[in-house]
Protein backbone atom coordinates (compact mmCIF):
# COMPACT_ATOMS: atom_id res chain seq x y z
CA UNK A 1 0.00 0.00 0.00
CA UNK A 2 1.38 3.33 -0.89
CA UNK A 3 1.16 6.24 1.39
CA UNK A 4 2.55 9.49 0.25
CA UNK A 5 4.23 11.66 2.83
CA UNK A 6 1.82 14.10 4.31
CA UNK A 7 1.94 17.74 3.47
CA UNK A 8 3.13 18.69 6.91
CA UNK A 9 6.65 17.88 5.87
CA UNK A 10 7.90 21.37 5.97
CA UNK A 11 7.05 22.63 2.52
CA UNK A 12 5.03 25.41 3.96
CA UNK A 13 7.86 26.36 6.27
CA UNK A 14 10.45 26.72 3.57
CA UNK A 15 11.47 30.27 2.93
CA UNK A 16 10.32 31.87 -0.30
CA UNK A 17 13.47 33.01 -1.99
CA UNK A 18 14.52 34.34 -5.31
CA UNK A 19 15.95 31.76 -7.72
CA UNK A 20 19.31 33.44 -7.67
CA UNK A 21 20.19 33.10 -4.02
CA UNK A 22 21.76 29.73 -3.39
CA UNK A 23 18.92 27.50 -4.45
CA UNK A 24 21.02 24.37 -4.87
CA UNK A 25 20.80 22.93 -1.40
CA UNK A 26 17.11 23.49 -0.88
CA UNK A 27 16.21 22.42 -4.40
CA UNK A 28 18.10 19.18 -3.95
CA UNK A 29 16.37 18.49 -0.67
CA UNK A 30 12.96 19.24 -2.10
CA UNK A 31 13.60 17.10 -5.11
CA UNK A 32 14.93 14.13 -3.15
CA UNK A 33 12.01 14.31 -0.75
CA UNK A 34 9.44 13.96 -3.51
CA UNK A 35 11.16 12.22 -6.38
CA UNK A 36 10.02 8.66 -5.65
CA UNK A 37 6.42 9.75 -5.24
CA UNK A 38 6.62 11.73 -8.46
CA UNK A 39 8.08 8.83 -10.42
CA UNK A 40 5.44 6.42 -9.15
CA UNK A 41 2.73 8.93 -9.88
CA UNK A 42 4.11 9.42 -13.37
CA UNK A 43 4.27 5.64 -13.82
CA UNK A 44 0.57 5.41 -13.09
CA UNK A 45 -0.03 7.91 -15.86
CA UNK A 46 2.39 6.94 -18.63
CA UNK A 47 3.70 3.54 -17.57
CA UNK A 48 6.95 2.51 -15.96
CA UNK A 49 9.10 3.05 -19.00
CA UNK A 50 8.24 6.67 -19.50
CA UNK A 51 7.88 7.76 -15.90
CA UNK A 52 11.42 9.00 -15.39
CA UNK A 53 11.35 10.96 -18.62
CA UNK A 54 8.18 12.71 -17.58
CA UNK A 55 9.57 13.64 -14.18
CA UNK A 56 12.93 14.69 -15.58
CA UNK A 57 11.21 16.91 -18.12
CA UNK A 58 9.14 18.50 -15.39
CA UNK A 59 12.07 19.09 -13.04
CA UNK A 60 14.30 20.51 -15.72
CA UNK A 61 11.59 22.70 -17.14
CA UNK A 62 10.80 24.00 -13.70
CA UNK A 63 14.42 24.65 -12.88
CA UNK A 64 14.86 26.48 -16.17
CA UNK A 65 12.33 29.01 -14.93
CA UNK A 66 12.68 29.13 -11.18
CA UNK A 67 14.05 27.32 -8.16
CA UNK A 68 11.94 24.69 -6.47
CA UNK A 69 12.41 26.48 -3.18
CA UNK A 70 10.80 29.61 -4.61
CA UNK A 71 7.54 27.72 -5.03
CA UNK A 72 4.96 28.18 -2.35
CA UNK A 73 3.92 24.53 -2.50
CA UNK A 74 6.58 22.69 -4.51
CA UNK A 75 5.07 19.27 -3.93
CA UNK A 76 1.64 20.22 -5.27
CA UNK A 77 3.24 22.19 -8.09
CA UNK A 78 5.36 19.22 -9.18
CA UNK A 79 2.43 16.79 -9.05
CA UNK A 80 0.35 19.10 -11.22
CA UNK A 81 3.28 19.58 -13.56
CA UNK A 82 3.75 15.82 -13.89
CA UNK A 83 0.07 15.44 -14.71
CA UNK A 84 0.29 18.18 -17.33
CA UNK A 85 3.50 16.81 -18.78
CA UNK A 86 1.97 13.36 -19.06
CA UNK A 87 -0.97 14.83 -20.95
CA UNK A 88 1.26 16.89 -23.16
CA UNK A 89 3.73 14.26 -24.22
CA UNK A 90 2.05 10.93 -23.96
CA UNK A 91 -1.60 11.55 -24.65
CA UNK A 92 -4.27 10.47 -22.28
CA UNK A 93 -4.09 6.74 -22.70
CA UNK A 94 -1.16 4.42 -22.25
CA UNK A 95 -0.94 1.13 -24.09
CA UNK A 96 -1.25 -1.38 -21.25
CA UNK A 97 0.87 -3.98 -23.01
CA UNK A 98 3.95 -1.80 -22.86
CA UNK A 99 3.48 -1.07 -19.22
CA UNK A 100 3.08 -4.60 -18.03
CA UNK A 101 4.86 -6.87 -20.44
CA UNK A 102 5.85 -9.87 -18.34
CA UNK A 103 7.58 -13.11 -19.33
CA UNK A 104 5.45 -15.13 -16.95
CA UNK A 105 1.84 -15.61 -16.11
CA UNK A 106 0.76 -13.27 -13.36
CA UNK A 107 0.49 -14.92 -9.95
CA UNK A 108 -2.99 -15.22 -8.47
CA UNK A 109 -2.40 -12.20 -6.27
CA UNK A 110 -1.94 -9.97 -9.27
CA UNK A 111 -4.89 -8.35 -11.02
CA UNK A 112 -6.22 -9.98 -14.14
CA UNK A 113 -4.73 -8.54 -17.35
CA UNK A 114 -8.09 -7.13 -18.40
CA UNK A 115 -8.33 -5.30 -15.08
CA UNK A 116 -4.86 -3.86 -15.54
CA UNK A 117 -5.73 -2.86 -19.06
CA UNK A 118 -8.95 -1.24 -17.90
CA UNK A 119 -7.21 0.79 -15.20
CA UNK A 120 -4.34 1.89 -17.39
CA UNK A 121 -6.76 2.66 -20.20
CA UNK A 122 -8.72 5.15 -18.14
CA UNK A 123 -8.46 8.83 -19.06
CA UNK A 124 -5.41 10.35 -17.49
CA UNK A 125 -7.14 12.42 -14.83
CA UNK A 126 -9.28 9.51 -13.73
CA UNK A 127 -6.09 7.51 -13.30
CA UNK A 128 -4.49 10.34 -11.37
CA UNK A 129 -7.47 10.63 -9.05
CA UNK A 130 -7.75 6.90 -8.40
CA UNK A 131 -4.00 6.61 -7.85
CA UNK A 132 -3.90 9.40 -5.32
CA UNK A 133 -7.04 8.39 -3.45
CA UNK A 134 -7.04 4.60 -3.60
CA UNK A 135 -3.36 3.79 -3.69
CA UNK A 136 -1.78 6.74 -1.95
CA UNK A 137 -4.59 6.94 0.60
CA UNK A 138 -5.00 10.68 0.24
CA UNK A 139 -8.28 12.33 1.06
CA UNK A 140 -10.29 13.75 -1.79
CA UNK A 141 -9.35 17.24 -0.68
CA UNK A 142 -5.64 16.35 -0.65
CA UNK A 143 -5.82 14.68 -4.04
CA UNK A 144 -7.68 17.68 -5.42
CA UNK A 145 -4.95 19.99 -4.22
CA UNK A 146 -2.20 17.92 -5.81
CA UNK A 147 -4.14 17.71 -9.07
CA UNK A 148 -5.04 21.37 -9.02
CA UNK A 149 -8.71 20.44 -9.21
CA UNK A 150 -11.76 20.96 -7.06
CA UNK A 151 -12.82 18.19 -4.68
CA UNK A 152 -16.09 17.81 -6.54
CA UNK A 153 -14.17 17.27 -9.75
CA UNK A 154 -12.05 14.57 -8.15
CA UNK A 155 -15.22 12.93 -6.86
CA UNK A 156 -16.52 12.85 -10.38
CA UNK A 157 -13.32 11.35 -11.73
CA UNK A 158 -13.52 8.63 -9.07
CA UNK A 159 -17.16 7.92 -9.87
CA UNK A 160 -16.50 7.61 -13.59
CA UNK A 161 -13.42 5.44 -13.00
CA UNK A 162 -15.25 3.11 -10.62
CA UNK A 163 -18.09 2.76 -13.05
CA UNK A 164 -15.71 1.88 -15.88
CA UNK A 165 -13.90 -0.68 -13.77
CA UNK A 166 -17.07 -2.22 -12.36
CA UNK A 167 -18.05 -3.49 -15.79
CA UNK A 168 -14.70 -5.24 -16.13
CA UNK A 169 -14.78 -6.72 -12.64
CA UNK A 170 -18.31 -8.00 -13.25
CA UNK A 171 -17.10 -9.65 -16.43
CA UNK A 172 -19.18 -7.43 -18.67
Amino acid at each position, binding site marked *: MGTLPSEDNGDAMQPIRSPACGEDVNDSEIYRKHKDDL*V*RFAASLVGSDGAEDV*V*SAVVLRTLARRSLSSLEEPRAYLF*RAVLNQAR*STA*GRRTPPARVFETPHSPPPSEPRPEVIAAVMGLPLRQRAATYL*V*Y*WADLSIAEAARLMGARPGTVKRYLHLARRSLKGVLDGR
Partner: protein
Amino acid sequence: MDVDRSTPEALAFRRVYQLVADRTAPARELEELTSSTLGPPPRSPRRAWPAAVAAAALVLALVGVSTLALRGDGQPMGEQAGPTSPFVVMADPAGVLGPDARITAKSESSDAFADGGAEMQMWARESETGLEQAVAVVTGASDDYLSEVADFAGPSETIERNGVTLTRFLPDPQSGSETTEVQWQGGAGSTSLLIARGLSDDAVLEIAVAVALDGTAAGAVPDGLEPVYDGDQMLAPPAGVILREVVYGAAAGYVDLFSFEGWAPDQVGFLLRSGEARRVDVNGRPGVLTPTGGSDWAVVWTDGNDLTFAVESGDVSTEELLAAARSVRSITEAEWDALVADPGDASGGSAAPSSDPID
Protein backbone atom coordinates in the same frame (compact mmCIF):
# COMPACT_ATOMS: atom_id res chain seq x y z
CA MET B 1 -16.62 9.30 5.31
CA ASP B 2 -14.28 10.82 2.75
CA VAL B 3 -14.30 7.88 0.39
CA ASP B 4 -15.05 4.15 0.61
CA ARG B 5 -11.80 2.29 0.02
CA SER B 6 -13.25 -1.17 0.64
CA THR B 7 -15.21 -1.61 -2.58
CA PRO B 8 -14.04 -4.19 -5.14
CA GLU B 9 -13.21 -1.35 -7.52
CA ALA B 10 -11.10 0.45 -4.91
CA LEU B 11 -9.22 -2.75 -4.11
CA ALA B 12 -8.62 -3.40 -7.80
CA PHE B 13 -7.19 0.09 -8.22
CA ARG B 14 -4.87 -0.51 -5.27
CA ARG B 15 -3.59 -3.78 -6.69
CA VAL B 16 -2.95 -2.37 -10.13
CA TYR B 17 -1.13 0.68 -8.81
CA GLN B 18 0.88 -1.50 -6.44
CA LEU B 19 1.98 -3.39 -9.51
CA VAL B 20 2.96 -0.11 -11.14
CA ALA B 21 4.97 0.89 -8.10
CA ASP B 22 6.69 -2.48 -7.86
CA ARG B 23 7.77 -2.34 -11.48
CA THR B 24 8.88 1.25 -11.54
CA ALA B 25 12.63 1.55 -11.67
CA PRO B 26 14.30 3.35 -8.78
CA ALA B 27 14.83 6.99 -9.48
CA ARG B 28 18.59 6.74 -9.42
CA GLU B 29 18.97 8.25 -12.87
CA LEU B 30 16.84 11.12 -11.79
CA GLU B 31 18.99 11.59 -8.76
CA GLU B 32 22.05 11.80 -10.98
CA LEU B 33 20.19 14.12 -13.26
CA THR B 34 19.19 16.50 -10.54
CA SER B 35 22.60 16.45 -8.92
CA SER B 36 24.12 17.45 -12.19
CA THR B 37 21.41 19.96 -12.98
CA LEU B 38 21.73 21.70 -9.69
CA GLY B 39 25.48 21.67 -10.06
CA PRO B 40 27.17 21.23 -13.43
CA PRO B 41 25.00 21.06 -16.55
CA PRO B 42 23.57 17.63 -17.49
CA ARG B 43 25.91 15.52 -19.59
CA SER B 44 23.68 12.79 -20.87
CA PRO B 45 22.26 13.69 -24.29
CA ARG B 46 19.19 11.58 -23.51
CA ARG B 47 18.55 13.58 -20.40
CA ALA B 48 19.38 16.89 -21.96
CA TRP B 49 16.42 17.04 -24.31
CA PRO B 50 13.90 18.34 -21.80
CA ALA B 51 16.12 21.35 -21.15
CA ALA B 52 16.04 22.17 -24.82
CA VAL B 53 12.31 21.67 -24.76
CA ALA B 54 11.98 24.03 -21.85
CA ALA B 55 14.05 26.68 -23.57
CA ALA B 56 12.13 26.22 -26.80
CA ALA B 57 8.79 26.44 -25.08
CA LEU B 58 9.04 30.16 -24.56
CA VAL B 59 10.07 30.73 -28.15
CA LEU B 60 7.25 28.57 -29.43
CA ALA B 61 4.79 30.32 -27.21
CA LEU B 62 5.90 33.67 -28.56
CA VAL B 63 5.64 32.36 -32.11
CA GLY B 64 2.16 31.14 -31.34
CA VAL B 65 1.10 34.51 -29.97
CA SER B 66 2.53 36.30 -32.97
CA THR B 67 0.77 33.95 -35.33
CA LEU B 68 -2.52 34.53 -33.61
CA ALA B 69 -2.05 38.25 -33.55
CA LEU B 70 -1.52 38.36 -37.29
CA ARG B 71 -4.24 35.95 -38.29
CA GLY B 72 -7.21 37.36 -40.18
CA ASP B 73 -5.79 40.87 -40.50
CA GLY B 74 -6.51 41.54 -36.88
CA GLN B 75 -9.98 40.09 -36.97
CA PRO B 76 -10.84 37.71 -34.17
CA MET B 77 -10.93 34.10 -35.26
CA GLY B 78 -14.46 33.87 -33.95
CA GLU B 79 -15.85 35.52 -37.05
CA GLN B 80 -16.17 32.18 -38.79
CA ALA B 81 -19.18 29.95 -38.31
CA GLY B 82 -18.99 27.55 -35.40
CA PRO B 83 -19.25 23.81 -35.72
CA THR B 84 -22.64 22.17 -35.74
CA SER B 85 -21.35 18.63 -36.14
CA PRO B 86 -20.02 16.40 -33.36
CA PHE B 87 -17.00 15.55 -35.52
CA VAL B 88 -14.58 18.36 -34.86
CA VAL B 89 -10.88 19.12 -35.05
CA MET B 90 -8.74 22.18 -34.50
CA ALA B 91 -8.40 24.18 -37.67
CA ASP B 92 -4.85 25.33 -36.96
CA PRO B 93 -3.17 23.56 -34.04
CA ALA B 94 0.25 24.81 -35.16
CA GLY B 95 -0.98 28.37 -34.82
CA VAL B 96 -1.71 27.77 -31.15
CA LEU B 97 0.90 25.25 -30.07
CA GLY B 98 3.68 25.88 -32.54
CA PRO B 99 4.96 24.00 -35.56
CA ASP B 100 5.61 20.80 -33.63
CA ALA B 101 1.93 20.39 -32.74
CA ARG B 102 0.68 16.88 -33.31
CA ILE B 103 -2.19 14.70 -32.29
CA THR B 104 -1.13 12.65 -29.29
CA ALA B 105 -4.46 10.92 -28.63
CA LYS B 106 -7.94 10.66 -30.03
CA SER B 107 -10.85 8.59 -28.95
CA GLU B 108 -14.55 8.04 -29.17
CA SER B 109 -16.55 6.56 -26.34
CA SER B 110 -20.12 6.39 -25.20
CA ASP B 111 -21.53 6.79 -21.74
CA ALA B 112 -24.96 6.86 -20.18
CA PHE B 113 -26.49 8.00 -16.95
CA ALA B 114 -29.12 5.42 -16.11
CA ASP B 115 -30.62 7.78 -13.62
CA GLY B 116 -31.75 10.19 -16.31
CA GLY B 117 -31.03 13.76 -17.03
CA ALA B 118 -31.65 17.17 -15.60
CA GLU B 119 -32.10 20.71 -16.82
CA MET B 120 -30.00 23.72 -16.06
CA GLN B 121 -30.55 27.47 -15.93
CA MET B 122 -27.72 29.92 -15.48
CA TRP B 123 -27.39 33.69 -15.09
CA ALA B 124 -24.28 35.79 -14.60
CA ARG B 125 -22.98 39.32 -14.21
CA GLU B 126 -19.45 39.95 -15.32
CA SER B 127 -16.85 42.39 -14.21
CA GLU B 128 -13.43 43.05 -15.64
CA THR B 129 -11.96 40.37 -13.42
CA GLY B 130 -14.44 37.59 -14.05
CA LEU B 131 -17.88 36.43 -12.99
CA GLU B 132 -18.80 38.87 -10.27
CA GLN B 133 -22.18 37.28 -9.65
CA ALA B 134 -23.53 34.07 -11.06
CA VAL B 135 -26.16 31.48 -10.32
CA ALA B 136 -26.85 28.12 -11.90
CA VAL B 137 -29.79 25.89 -11.06
CA VAL B 138 -29.92 22.22 -11.96
CA THR B 139 -33.41 20.76 -11.67
CA GLY B 140 -34.72 17.24 -11.95
CA ALA B 141 -31.47 15.48 -11.14
CA SER B 142 -31.28 12.25 -9.20
CA ASP B 143 -29.24 12.05 -6.03
CA ASP B 144 -26.78 9.77 -7.78
CA TYR B 145 -26.26 12.30 -10.49
CA LEU B 146 -25.84 15.15 -8.06
CA SER B 147 -23.31 13.21 -6.08
CA GLU B 148 -21.11 13.54 -9.11
CA VAL B 149 -21.43 17.25 -9.61
CA ALA B 150 -21.87 18.73 -6.16
CA ASP B 151 -19.29 19.37 -3.49
CA PHE B 152 -21.41 19.53 -0.37
CA ALA B 153 -18.23 19.85 1.64
CA GLY B 154 -19.09 22.64 4.01
CA PRO B 155 -21.52 22.93 6.89
CA SER B 156 -25.22 23.00 6.08
CA GLU B 157 -28.47 24.27 7.53
CA THR B 158 -32.14 23.58 6.84
CA ILE B 159 -34.33 26.54 5.96
CA GLU B 160 -38.09 26.73 5.47
CA ARG B 161 -39.27 29.49 3.14
CA ASN B 162 -42.66 29.88 1.46
CA GLY B 163 -43.44 26.26 2.21
CA VAL B 164 -40.27 24.98 0.57
CA THR B 165 -37.66 23.08 2.58
CA LEU B 166 -34.19 24.07 1.50
CA THR B 167 -30.81 22.76 2.57
CA ARG B 168 -28.16 25.42 2.30
CA PHE B 169 -24.50 24.41 2.13
CA LEU B 170 -22.31 27.26 3.23
CA PRO B 171 -18.99 28.15 1.65
CA ASP B 172 -16.24 25.92 2.95
CA PRO B 173 -13.12 27.97 3.68
CA GLN B 174 -10.99 24.83 3.94
CA SER B 175 -11.77 23.79 0.38
CA GLY B 176 -11.36 27.30 -0.94
CA SER B 177 -14.96 27.33 -2.13
CA GLU B 178 -16.54 30.74 -2.55
CA THR B 179 -19.98 29.52 -3.52
CA THR B 180 -23.21 28.86 -1.74
CA GLU B 181 -25.13 25.73 -2.72
CA VAL B 182 -28.80 25.11 -1.99
CA GLN B 183 -30.52 21.79 -2.48
CA TRP B 184 -34.19 20.81 -2.31
CA GLN B 185 -36.39 17.89 -3.28
CA GLY B 186 -38.55 18.19 -6.38
CA GLY B 187 -41.15 15.91 -7.84
CA ALA B 188 -40.71 12.19 -8.62
CA GLY B 189 -37.83 11.79 -6.24
CA SER B 190 -35.65 14.24 -8.10
CA THR B 191 -33.39 16.81 -6.51
CA SER B 192 -32.62 20.36 -7.48
CA LEU B 193 -29.34 22.11 -6.85
CA LEU B 194 -28.53 25.79 -6.95
CA ILE B 195 -24.96 27.05 -7.07
CA ALA B 196 -24.35 30.76 -6.59
CA ARG B 197 -21.46 33.12 -6.08
CA GLY B 198 -21.48 36.79 -5.27
CA LEU B 199 -25.18 36.89 -4.34
CA SER B 200 -26.72 37.76 -1.00
CA ASP B 201 -28.25 35.01 1.10
CA ASP B 202 -31.69 36.47 0.53
CA ALA B 203 -31.24 36.56 -3.23
CA VAL B 204 -30.04 32.97 -3.29
CA LEU B 205 -32.99 31.72 -1.26
CA GLU B 206 -35.47 33.74 -3.31
CA ILE B 207 -34.16 32.21 -6.52
CA ALA B 208 -34.33 28.72 -5.03
CA VAL B 209 -37.94 29.21 -3.95
CA ALA B 210 -38.88 30.62 -7.35
CA VAL B 211 -37.47 27.60 -9.12
CA ALA B 212 -39.06 25.20 -6.63
CA LEU B 213 -42.51 26.79 -7.06
CA ASP B 214 -42.48 28.15 -10.61
CA GLY B 215 -39.83 26.08 -12.36
CA THR B 216 -37.85 29.13 -13.44
CA ALA B 217 -35.53 31.57 -11.77
CA ALA B 218 -36.19 34.26 -14.35
CA GLY B 219 -38.43 36.38 -12.12
CA ALA B 220 -36.20 36.17 -9.09
CA VAL B 221 -32.77 36.82 -10.50
CA PRO B 222 -31.42 40.23 -9.40
CA ASP B 223 -31.23 42.99 -11.99
CA GLY B 224 -28.01 43.04 -13.92
CA LEU B 225 -27.58 39.30 -14.25
CA GLU B 226 -27.97 38.14 -17.81
CA PRO B 227 -29.02 34.68 -18.94
CA VAL B 228 -26.24 32.38 -20.02
CA TYR B 229 -28.39 29.28 -20.31
CA ASP B 230 -32.07 29.70 -19.65
CA GLY B 231 -33.88 26.48 -19.03
CA ASP B 232 -33.25 24.78 -22.34
CA GLN B 233 -30.05 23.02 -21.48
CA MET B 234 -30.39 19.31 -20.79
CA LEU B 235 -27.78 17.65 -18.66
CA ALA B 236 -26.85 14.06 -19.40
CA PRO B 237 -30.08 12.79 -20.96
CA PRO B 238 -30.87 9.12 -20.41
CA ALA B 239 -30.31 8.36 -24.06
CA GLY B 240 -26.61 8.48 -23.35
CA VAL B 241 -23.65 10.53 -24.32
CA ILE B 242 -21.03 10.13 -27.00
CA LEU B 243 -17.72 11.71 -26.16
CA ARG B 244 -15.19 12.44 -28.87
CA GLU B 245 -11.78 13.76 -27.98
CA VAL B 246 -8.65 14.85 -29.79
CA VAL B 247 -5.54 15.84 -27.86
CA TYR B 248 -2.93 18.03 -29.52
CA GLY B 249 0.49 18.05 -27.90
CA ALA B 250 3.60 20.13 -28.46
CA ALA B 251 6.58 21.35 -26.52
CA ALA B 252 4.64 24.50 -25.73
CA GLY B 253 1.80 22.62 -24.06
CA TYR B 254 -1.31 20.78 -25.12
CA VAL B 255 -4.85 21.43 -26.23
CA ASP B 256 -7.61 18.94 -25.51
CA LEU B 257 -10.67 19.19 -27.76
CA PHE B 258 -13.90 17.51 -26.68
CA SER B 259 -17.20 17.09 -28.45
CA PHE B 260 -20.11 15.85 -26.36
CA GLU B 261 -23.09 14.56 -28.32
CA GLY B 262 -26.21 14.36 -26.19
CA TRP B 263 -24.63 16.30 -23.37
CA ALA B 264 -25.06 19.81 -22.16
CA PRO B 265 -22.58 21.76 -20.11
CA ASP B 266 -22.94 20.47 -16.61
CA GLN B 267 -19.39 21.68 -16.35
CA VAL B 268 -20.80 25.17 -16.23
CA GLY B 269 -21.88 24.47 -12.68
CA PHE B 270 -18.28 23.81 -11.79
CA LEU B 271 -17.18 26.87 -13.64
CA LEU B 272 -19.28 29.06 -11.42
CA ARG B 273 -17.12 28.11 -8.50
CA SER B 274 -14.16 29.96 -9.90
CA GLY B 275 -14.15 33.70 -9.54
CA GLU B 276 -11.82 33.89 -12.51
CA ALA B 277 -14.36 32.31 -14.86
CA ARG B 278 -15.92 34.66 -17.37
CA ARG B 279 -18.36 34.58 -20.22
CA VAL B 280 -16.98 34.52 -23.71
CA ASP B 281 -18.40 34.55 -27.18
CA VAL B 282 -17.53 31.55 -29.29
CA ASN B 283 -18.68 32.24 -32.81
CA GLY B 284 -21.90 33.78 -31.62
CA ARG B 285 -22.62 31.18 -28.95
CA PRO B 286 -22.31 31.89 -25.22
CA GLY B 287 -19.40 30.12 -23.64
CA VAL B 288 -17.45 30.12 -20.41
CA LEU B 289 -13.70 30.53 -20.03
CA THR B 290 -12.49 29.15 -16.74
CA PRO B 291 -9.42 27.88 -14.96
CA THR B 292 -9.56 24.16 -14.30
CA GLY B 293 -6.56 23.84 -12.05
CA GLY B 294 -2.85 24.37 -12.22
CA SER B 295 -2.05 26.15 -15.45
CA ASP B 296 -5.04 24.60 -17.20
CA TRP B 297 -7.92 26.59 -18.63
CA ALA B 298 -11.00 25.52 -20.49
CA VAL B 299 -13.57 27.02 -22.82
CA VAL B 300 -16.98 25.36 -22.86
CA TRP B 301 -19.84 26.22 -25.20
CA THR B 302 -22.75 24.55 -26.95
CA ASP B 303 -24.33 24.74 -30.37
CA GLY B 304 -27.69 25.40 -28.71
CA ASN B 305 -29.01 21.88 -29.20
CA ASP B 306 -27.45 18.71 -27.93
CA LEU B 307 -23.82 19.35 -28.76
CA THR B 308 -21.35 20.71 -26.27
CA PHE B 309 -17.77 21.52 -27.09
CA ALA B 310 -14.89 22.02 -24.71
CA VAL B 311 -11.31 23.01 -25.30
CA GLU B 312 -8.88 22.50 -22.46
CA SER B 313 -5.25 23.49 -22.39
CA GLY B 314 -2.08 23.52 -20.43
CA ASP B 315 0.64 26.11 -20.75
CA VAL B 316 -0.99 28.17 -23.48
CA SER B 317 -2.45 31.59 -22.85
CA THR B 318 -6.16 32.15 -22.42
CA GLU B 319 -6.12 34.24 -25.59
CA GLU B 320 -4.63 31.34 -27.50
CA LEU B 321 -7.09 28.95 -25.95
CA LEU B 322 -10.02 31.13 -26.92
CA ALA B 323 -8.64 31.45 -30.43
CA ALA B 324 -8.39 27.68 -30.56
CA ALA B 325 -12.00 27.33 -29.48
CA ARG B 326 -13.17 29.77 -32.10
CA SER B 327 -11.24 27.98 -34.80
CA VAL B 328 -12.67 24.54 -34.10
CA ARG B 329 -14.17 23.19 -37.29
CA SER B 330 -16.29 20.25 -38.30
CA ILE B 331 -15.17 17.39 -40.45
CA THR B 332 -17.28 14.69 -42.00
CA GLU B 333 -18.11 11.51 -40.13
CA ALA B 334 -16.00 9.56 -42.62
CA GLU B 335 -13.04 11.82 -41.93
CA TRP B 336 -13.53 11.40 -38.22
CA ASP B 337 -13.63 7.63 -38.53
CA ALA B 338 -10.44 7.71 -40.53
CA LEU B 339 -8.78 9.97 -37.98
CA VAL B 340 -9.64 7.74 -35.04
CA ALA B 341 -8.72 4.57 -36.89
CA ASP B 342 -5.32 5.83 -38.03
CA PRO B 343 -2.67 4.79 -35.50
CA GLY B 344 -0.12 7.05 -37.16
CA ASP B 345 -1.73 10.25 -36.02
CA ALA B 346 -1.10 9.45 -32.41
CA SER B 347 2.60 9.06 -32.99
CA GLY B 348 3.44 12.12 -34.93
CA GLY B 349 1.18 12.27 -37.93
CA SER B 350 -0.50 15.36 -39.23
CA ALA B 351 -2.19 17.52 -36.66
CA ALA B 352 -5.52 17.64 -38.45
CA PRO B 353 -7.25 16.24 -41.50
CA SER B 354 -6.66 18.37 -44.54
CA SER B 355 -10.25 18.64 -45.68
CA ASP B 356 -12.04 21.95 -45.87
CA PRO B 357 -14.47 22.94 -43.15
CA ILE B 358 -17.99 21.82 -43.87
CA ASP B 359 -19.60 24.60 -41.88
